[in-house]
Every structure is written in C-alpha cells, then in structure tokens.
C-alpha cells in the first residue's frame, strides 16, 4: 500500500480529484490506518487554516465599513462608478501625500514639553519647538508650568500629568452642530493641539481616567482639558495633516476593552477614514495621553460622547 500523500489527501478533501482518484483515496483512508490518520490530520489542518484566516476578518462593532451597494441598484452606468472611484482614490491619495515626511517629522519627533492646554493657548500653528512659544505664554496658574518644571516637582509623572487638573480627566460631551467659523477655530486649535502630541518622552502613571461632571465641556470646539484633546472629525483632520495618528475607536455600546486600534489612512472632504471605517465630520473623537502614547479615544455616532477610561493606546504612526 502506498504511503499517504498529503497533497493528494488535501486535493481529495477539497473535492478537486476526479471521481476515480477520489474513490481510490477514499478506499485507502478506509482500509489503511496510516492513511486514515493522515486524512484526519489534514482535515484538522484545513479547518484550522480556515479559522486562522477568518481571524483576519475580525472587525469590531461600530467600525465595520458599510456594505457595498449592489451595482444593479444604481441608476448610473457602470463606468461612472469606476470613474468616480478612481477620482476619489486619486484625490484621497493626493490629500494624504500632502503630508510629506518633511512636514511630519518635526512634529512627531520634536520633544514638545508644554502641557496641551498651554499649547492650545500659546503656541502658534507651526512646527512645535520650545523656542516657538512666546515668553508671554507662561501663565501663573500651576497648569501653565512647563513639563520640565512638572517633572522636577512630580517625579514619575508625565508631560500630560503636569497639565492635567485631575487624573480623573474623562469628559462628558454634548455634541452640537458646528458653524463654519467655529470649525475654522477648531481647525486652527487642532493645529496647535497636535503639537502636544509630538513624541512625549516621559512615562505617565497608568491610573485610569474616569469621567467627572466638572470636566464636562462643550464639543463645538477642539478642546484640550488635562491633556485630553478632542473635537469633531473635521477638526482632527487638521491634526492628521500634521501628523499621522493611530486612533483607537470605541463603539458606543461596547466595554472599553473592546477598543480597537484604527490607523488613520486617509483624509478627504468631510470624512476621515480609519482603516475601512469612514468617520464623518460631525463625529467626535477624543485623545487621552498615556505615557509615551495616547489612549482612550472614542468616536460616537450619537449626540453624546464620553471619554472613556484609558483603555487603549493611540500610537503615533511611523512616518511614511
């Protein structure tokens, strides 16, 4: 009796053998224990590989891309869809390509050491360097201390801790419609806020950030509270042009641990795309610093958003 042929067995299990050969393999599997064992193992491998590949399709709730509409439902002829797709693709790519390494690198790599709140107030929307902060930017309240000061006075606490009035700096937000002027303000502030996200160098404590009523803010503007930066997708889009960001997105109903890292892959029009999921301009995201990365980002599709406890890392994407 021949030795078991793995390739043959897999072809048989895949239903790819002609009838006569399939019958022969079947007979061998029934008569010879060695063949039977090889068939059993091959069945296991077929099932295992399918399961492993299916794991690549895991997409958490709330971030699943909308299913493609069936082409037959469209009124437009087929070539318009293809042309539109090409235009969108090229346009989107050009927008992304506008973030060149030259413009990104300084933002990502600069060790910006001012609190976020201070950044928003004091830093002009340019590449963030300590020298770029005007002298008058320093304010008397403790939150205005520089990071170096904070680090000296509170060893072990991080950049954002110095700026945070409380480690319980989670935020309840009521989302509202946004005017064009407010959006412009947001975008400008987002430009400054992103400076604070450039490569923090100190490790912050891992205490979870909890929501408190006193930290409730309105969401019309890009807001910086205790190192938490937030705003609508439109505003954060401005940030994204400065530095590619990896967002961790939480669906409304899921527990914080269900967060998923979403890489910002494209910005176009009123939409930014996180992996496969488009995030519209009216949707809100919050970024929470945690050590050398950013955590606790949530994007909702409802009226109310809440910054969740520090549940995931917001990683600075490698510069393309």
């Amino acid at each position, binding site marked *: 009796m021949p030795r078991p042929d*793995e*390739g043959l067995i897999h072809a048989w299990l895949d239903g790819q053998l002609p009838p006569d050969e399939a019958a022969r393999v079947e007979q061998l599997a029934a008569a010879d224990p060695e063949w039977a064992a090889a068939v059993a193992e091959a069945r296991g491998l077929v099932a295992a*590989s399918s399961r492993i590949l299916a794991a690549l399709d895991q997409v958490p709730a709330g971030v699943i891309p909308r299913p493609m509409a069936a082409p037959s439902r469209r009124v437009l002829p*087929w070539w318009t869809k293809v042309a539109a797709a090409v235009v969108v693709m090229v346009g989107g790519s050009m927008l992304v390509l506008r973030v060149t390494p030259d413009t990104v690198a300084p933002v990502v790599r600069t060790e910006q050491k001012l609190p976020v709140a201070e950044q928003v107030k004091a830093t002009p929307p340019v590449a963030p360097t300590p020298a770029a902060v005007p002298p008058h930017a320093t304010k008397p309240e403790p939150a205005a201390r520089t990071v170096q000061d904070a680090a000296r006075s509170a060893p072990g606490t991080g950049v954002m801790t110095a700026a945070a009035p409380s480690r319980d700096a989670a935020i309840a937000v009521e989302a509202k419609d946004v005017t064009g002027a407010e959006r412009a303000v947001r975008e400008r502030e987002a430009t400054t806020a992103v400076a604070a996200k450039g490569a923090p160098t100190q490790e912050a404590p891992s205490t979870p950030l909890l929501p408190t009523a006193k930290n409730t803010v309105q969401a019309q503007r890009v807001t910086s509270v205790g190192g938490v930066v937030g705003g609508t997708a439109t505003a954060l889009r401005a940030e994204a042009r400065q530095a590619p960001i990896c967002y961790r997105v939480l669906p409304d109903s899921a527990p914080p641990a269900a967060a998923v890292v979403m890489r910002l892959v494209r910005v176009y029009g009123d939409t930014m795309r996180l992996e496969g999921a488009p995030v519209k301009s009216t949707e809100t995201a919050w970024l929470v610093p945690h050590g050398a*990365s950013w955590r606790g980002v949530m994007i909702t599709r409802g009226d109310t958003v809440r910054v969740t406890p520090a549940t995931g890392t917001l990683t600075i994407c490698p510069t393309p």
Partner: protein
Amino acid sequence: MSDIERLFATYHLPLVRYLTRRLGDRDWAEEIAQETFVRALRQEALVNERSWLFAVASNLVRDEARKDIRRRRHLEVLAAEARDAQAEAPDVALERALDAADARRALDALAERDRQALLLREEGLDYPEIAEVLGIAVGSVGTTLSRARRRLAELFEAQGAARAQRGNHAAS
C-alpha cells in the same frame, strides 16, 4: 446588467476580502480591487474571469509590495499594538485582536506562493484556477496547499505559545 457590472457584483466582495487578508489593510485592498476592475474594463474578453481578476490583483499587490512601505508601516503598527496588548488584562475582544495579530504574523511568515494559494483557495478558486494564477502545475496545487496549511497552523500555534510564555514571564 452589463458584463462589467456582473463582474463587479460577483467578484468585488471576494476580491476585496482576499486582498484585505493578504495585505492587512482594507483601504489598500479597495484600491487594488478598483484598479483590477479598471483593468478588466480594458479587456475585450476574459476567458476565465475569476482567475484573471485574482491574477491581476495578485500582480498589482506584488508590484506595490516591492515598495513595501505600507507593509512595513502596518507591521510596526501591529508591533505597537501587541506591545500595548501585553500590558492589558485580556478579555474576549482583546483575545480576538491578539488572534488576528497572530494570524497576520503567521500568514506573513509564509512563502509568497503558499500564502497566495491559501488565500485563493479560501475564496473558492478551484485547483486549475489557482494553478493559473500562480503559474504552477495543477498537480502541485494540493502539495502547495497541504504545506501552506500545515505551516500556517504551526506558525499560529507558535505565536500563541510565545505569547503565553511572555504572559507567564510577566506574571512571575
């Protein structure tokens, strides 16, 4: 329904799934799929449309993969994600994410031909179609698949074992 519409309706989903699994990047997969259909438009006739589409998509991936920038970036993101995940208490969602990361690493570690054969088979291509896409003999597809499946399972298991070991070290 025109031919191209039928083609799109029939193959867009499996093609994007194949590309997404292969690349680990849905947007990139969508782009490659769009380009594949654009190229299909230029063809007067397709003899074996499924294998043609998957072959063109595979070639486009190969061409782009030469630059390799996005893949490297993706792997770096995965690495950062895995590092972060190690510090968190696992739950079901996290476990799924780790499974996905392990699966990605295992798949990426396969030889290109094995990887392609697996993914094409998962999309329902039969052996002659897979042979056509890969440019190999039909008779060797079974062997290729058996090797690829075994290797994938072994690599995936190894990833899980290594992760468990890291977890034990961290706990002790």
